[in-house]
């Protein structure tokens, strides 16, 4: 396909591979790109496992970023080893609140979560732009009169420390991997995780067993949002400018991580641990696409579209395969399992299966 665009495919892909994996520096860049994808992907995984779809990663990232930025602006002088954990916590809270709203809307007002999360994304972007053009704008920009919409350089105490090894890798990458492992434990080792998965698979049986489907849907969104909020923290405090910024458009500083994370999660088979390599590959793809653009002068967007197709095929075939395996096994005794989940039961919350 590259050939059609008048570029040498060989050079192109060589550049992509080299840009993504060639040398420690490029590997580190891929890992940095993967970091928010991993956090979001893990969050998405929790939601999917609980039977809800969280398209609101973007909004939750922004909510986490704003809240943690406000926090650091308020307490710039707290020593680093206290400030950093608290910043992550506050960011997680921001995301959890934003995600939780979608959960509450779904559970208690029967608002479809796809609709509400998309709306919440739009609202978050607007709030971000408002804040950065107004109260949060860097005072220096106002003095200079250039009025670039970003905050001042945030307290150095909240900078994510660079990891030893001479690359740009910072603490955020470790946090992301740690959270993936933590979420694995949450989902498969705790009672809360059991409830989330139970509700995702079969709301009827969950209710029968004494679980509150509504409550668990809200919780799933909060956990999911918390992960995305932490992604927001890594994106602000691990950025080169160490500030919260916006381009005024719809994707702002997130680089669409809120959406790409969904792909990473699906690519990782909705398993928190598999999401780690899946995000890394996807991050590498994004980095490699830029290198390829430089090498063969094909717009990165186009390369991304091509690679997006590859991802769709991979995920699609995986999905088809698991789906086939599932139908085969379900159609034995369990055939009615999926059929009988009719939402018509009076007063029941809408059941849904992860696709």
């Amino acid at each position, binding site marked *: 396909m590259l050939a059609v665009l008048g570029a040498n495919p060989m050079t192109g892909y060589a550049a992509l591979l080299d840009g993504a994996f060639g040398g420690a520096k490029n590997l580190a860049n891929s890992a940095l790109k993967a970091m928010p994808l991993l956090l979001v992907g893990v969050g998405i995984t929790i939601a999917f496992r609980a039977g809800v779809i969280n398209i609101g990663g973007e909004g939750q990232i922004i909510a986490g970023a704003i809240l943690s930025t406000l926090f650091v602006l308020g307490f710039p002088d707290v020593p680093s080893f206290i400030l950093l954990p608290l910043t992550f916590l506050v960011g997680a809270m921001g995301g959890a609140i934003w995600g939780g709203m979608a959960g509450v809307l779904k559970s208690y007002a029967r608002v479809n979560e796809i609709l509400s999360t998309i709306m919440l994304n739009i609202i978050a972007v607007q709030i971000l732009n408002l804040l950065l053009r107004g109260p949060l704008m860097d005072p220096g920009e106002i003095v200079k009169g250039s009025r670039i919409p970003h905050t001042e350089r945030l307290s150095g105490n909240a900078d994510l420390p660079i990891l030893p090894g001479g690359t740009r890798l910072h603490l955020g990458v470790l946090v992301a991997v740690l959270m993936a492992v933590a979420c694995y434990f949450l989902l498969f080792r705790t*009672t809360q995780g059991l409830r989330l998965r139970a509700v995702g698979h079969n709301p009827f049986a969950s209710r029968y067993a004494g679980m509150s489907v509504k409550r668990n849907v809200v919780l799933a969104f909060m956990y999911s949002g918390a992960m995305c909020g932490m992604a927001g923290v890594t994106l602000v405090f691990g950025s080169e400018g160490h500030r919260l910024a916006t381009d005024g458009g719809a994707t702002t500083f997130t680089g669409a991580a809120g959406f790409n994370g969904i792909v990473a999660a699906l690519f990782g088979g909705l398993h928190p641990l598999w999401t780690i390599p899946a995000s890394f590959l996807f991050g590498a793809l994004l980095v490699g696409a830029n290198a390829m653009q430089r090498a063969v002068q094909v717009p990165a967007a186009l390369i991304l579209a091509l690679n997006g197709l590859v991802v769709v095929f991979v995920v699609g075939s995986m999905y088809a395969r698991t789906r086939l395996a599932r139908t085969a096994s379900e159609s*034995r005794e369990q055939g009615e399992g999926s059929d009988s989940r009719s939402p018509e039961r009076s007063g029941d919350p809408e059941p849904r299966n992860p696709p």
Partner: protein
Amino acid sequence: MRPATAGAPLLELEGITKRFPGVVANDRVDFDVRPGEVHTLLGENGAGKSTLMKILYGLYQADEGEIRLRGEPVTIESPSDAIEQGIGMIHQHFMLVPTLTVAENVALGLPSGRRLMQDLSPVQQRIRELSEIYGLAVDPDAYIWQLAVGERQRVEIMKAIYRDVSLLILDEPTSVLTPAEVEDLFVTLRQMTDGGRGLVFISHKLHEVMSLSDRITVLRGGRVTGRTVPSETSREQLAHMMVGREVRLAPNRSESDVADARLAISALEVLGDRGTPAVTGFDLEVRSGEVVGIAGVSGNGQRELAEALAGLRPVASGTVVMNGVDTTTKTPKEIRRLGVSYIPEERMRDGAIGEFSVAENLILTSHDLPPTSRRGFLNFKEIETGCSDLVRRFTVKTPSLETPTSNLSGGNIQKLIIARELSGEPEVLIASQPTRGVDIGAAEYIHTVLMDQRAGGIAILLISEDLDEVIGLSDRIAVMFEGRIMGTLGQEEATVQRLGLLMAGVSEGEE
């Protein structure tokens, strides 16, 4: 019995072997069906009956062996192949789409059903005609989710008749039916065989097997262990062939001390799915050490009653007091914590999560209590020992505790649920159709367990359509009809005839 029809078999299965991880579900099984006969497949839970039939229906592929239809070797790769060859199957668990109407479900998968827009009126018309001919009462316009299990089953049969199958597989069709419904079904089935169709029948109820079958094949552990015809055998002998040991067919009742009321229902009114009253003016008391049976044709409010007691369905008016606490408006969890267990009627919907492992389902209701978990973390060592113990005590046949529950045979899923519900040492047990679909060996065990629990002082509300079971286990029997109690009989005075009249809505005075 009618003479076995001469001529070429309609269907021959030869040397069928099917292996699953950890089990050989079918081991070189030979089986055939001649036109116009009912060939029964008998065997314990997990013997491999459903597996064999699913191979025939194209849901599974055999590892070895041959399938011949009318003498011709065939490969059946999917249910649509099977349907094309004129094979129909009524599954142990129904395969209907609850959000569609009866007519839509029947039309579903028909060649013309693939069109986006479809005029259903000819389908509805034909359904009405067929229900006349076969005496199958189904309303083509009703939604599946509104129907009781017995009614759903008639829809399944209607689907098969509509498609005009020449071979129909019925996997435990009667486990959800009342005796009267079973009689009607058998009339319908006989009508089908008289037309030259062949039937494969699977049931755990030996009297049904004796009355309907032309031939009987017994499976045990995936292997054919016996073939016979009803005229040359007896229920006891069949039971022995299935289980490999003597089985007591009637439960053993002992004396038990009846004490204070554990469950008191007064003036209960509950609405059904359609918003109309399903239970009205219902009063009942169950004391500790007592089994009170609820008999009745399915769809007369039993499901709604059980769900209301378990907190799964709102109570419209009236009160429920359990263990001295008013539970009328309590949540399912609060009710469970009061020592109330519930064996639900629809095991795959309410009772278990198919995707969960056997262990996860066994701890589903107690996962947040010690010792299963501590401070929110699951205690896998404890779970492992506790679950292996339950699996052993209740003879749940599973390759491992990690096996997905949907891979178990139907009867074993039921045993799993019962194991879980009795593991918490309840004070009140609501048991809906506790032995539906389980083999006679397991039913015997479940009955023994229920009797032990009764002797141990728990109060049991037994909702069952199996009259032998209700009479055998209950101290008192209330018959439910259209949401009310038609009459209550003591254990000694209860007979199938008297119960049958009450179930039909004829009160004692009117006889």
